[in-house]
C-alpha cells in the first residue's frame, strides 16, 4: 500500500457529532412528547443496529471477488458514521424549528423521521463511495445490507415515535 492509497485519518469531531446527533434528534422527540426515553432510545437504536449489522457487512463483502480488507471496511464505516453525524448536525436545527412551530405531534414524528432517514441515506451513499465495490457481488452485498439495516432501524424508530407521540 503506497502513501497515496493510505486511508485518511479519522476525524474525531465527526465521530463526536455522530454520537451526539441521534441524542439531539431524540431530544426533539422528547421535547414534544414530554418523555425523556427517546434521549436514550434513539442513540440505542442507531448504534445498536450498527453494531449488530456491521460485522455482517464485513463478512459478506470480504467473501466477494476483490473484497476490501478489514481496515478498509472499518475506515469506510467510520467515514460513513462521520457523514451521518455531520448531516444530522445540519438537519437538527430545521427539525427543531418545524417541531416547535407546530402543535401537532404527527409533524414532529414525520420531521424527525425524515431527518434521521435523510442522514442515514447520506451515510449509505458515503459508505458506498468509500467502499467502492469492484465486483457485482460487492454491489449486491452493499445494497442488501443497506436495505436490511435501514429496515430494522426504521421499524424500531417508528415504533418508538408511535409509542411516545401518537
Amino acid at each position, binding site marked *: 500500500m503506497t502513501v497515496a492509497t493510505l486511508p485518511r485519518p479519522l476525524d474525531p469531531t465527526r465521530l463526536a457529532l455522530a454520537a451526539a446527533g441521534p441524542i439531539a434528534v431524540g431530544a426533539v422527540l422528547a421535547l414534544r412528547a414530554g418523555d425523556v426515553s427517546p434521549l436514550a432510545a434513539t442513540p440505542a437504536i442507531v448504534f445498536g443496529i450498527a453494531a449488530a449489522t456491521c460485522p455482517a457487512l464485513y463478512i459478506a463483502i470480504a467473501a466477494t471477488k476483490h473484497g476490501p480488507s478489514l481496515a478498509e471496511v472499518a475506515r469506510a464505516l467510520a467515514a460513513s458514521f462521520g*457523514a451521518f453525524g455531520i448531516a444530522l448536525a445540519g438537519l437538527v436545527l*430545521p427539525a427543531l*424549528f*418545524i417541531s416547535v412551530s407546530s*402543535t401537532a405531534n404527527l409533524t414532529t414524528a414525520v420531521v424527525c423521521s425524515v431527518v434521521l432517514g435523510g*442522514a442515514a441515506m447520506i451515510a449509505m451513499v458515503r459508505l458506498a463511495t468509500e467502499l467502492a465495490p469492484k465486483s457485482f457481488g460487492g454491489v449486491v452485498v452493499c445494497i442488501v445490507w443497506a436495505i436490511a439495516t435501514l429496515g430494522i432501524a426504521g421499524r424500531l424508530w417508528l415504533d418508538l415515535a408511535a409509542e411516545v407521540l401518537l
Partner: protein
Amino acid sequence: MIGAIETPKLSLGTIDLLLRDRDRMLIKIRTGNVTEILRTMTVTIMVAMAIVGAALGSYRGGEQIFYAAIKLPLVLLGTAALSAPALTAIGTALGRRSRLAVDLALVMSALAFGALIVVAFTPLIMLGRTLDASYHEMILGTVAVFAIGGLAALGMIIRAMSIEAGRGWRTAVATMCLVFVMVGGQLSWALRPYLVRPKAQEVVFVREVEGSLFDAVVGAVRSARGIYHRDHAPVPDEVSP
C-alpha cells in the same frame, strides 16, 4: 471593462451581475469577497420582500401593509439562516470541503434572485388590487408568483452544485431542496397572514401557533376525500379574520 464587471465595487454592481450573468455570479461567490456579497444580498432581500409585503398588505390596507412588509423579509432571511448550515453539513458529509460562509452566500444570493423575480411581479399584484380581484384570485396569483421566484432560487442553487460537480452533488441538491421547501414553507406558514380579506375587521401580526403546513396539507387532502373532523362548516361568526 470585464475586470470592472467581475469585481464590482458597488453593491448595485453585484445585484446587476446576479440578474444578468449568474454563472459569473457563482464564480464571484466562490472567489470573491463573501462579506460584501452577504451584506448586499441581505439588503436586497429585505428591500425586495418589504416591497412585495407592502403590496400584498395593501389588499387589506392599514397596519397590514407594515405587518406584511416586516414579515416577508424575515421569512427569507430565516430560511437562509436555517438552510445554509444544512447545505454545508450535507456537502461535508458527502466528502466536500466544509465552507459555511460560501454556502451561506450562495443561499442568500439564490434567495435574493428569487426575491428580485417576485418583486418584478409587484405591478401585477397591484393591478389585481386595482381591478378588485377576489381574495381567492389574489391568493392563487400570489402562490404562482412565489412559486416562480422559489423555482428560480432553487435553479440557481442546483446550477451552482452542478458546476462544482463534487462528490454526491445530486444527493446534496435533493436533500437541500427538501430542507428548503420544508423550512421555507413552515416559516412562511408560521408568520402568516400576509394577504388579508379587505373586509376583515381586525388584523393580527401573526396567528397563534397551530398545526403546521404539513398538517394543513393533510387536512386538505382529508377534506377533499370527504373526511371531516367537525360536525359542520364554520358559520360567519366563527370565521377568523
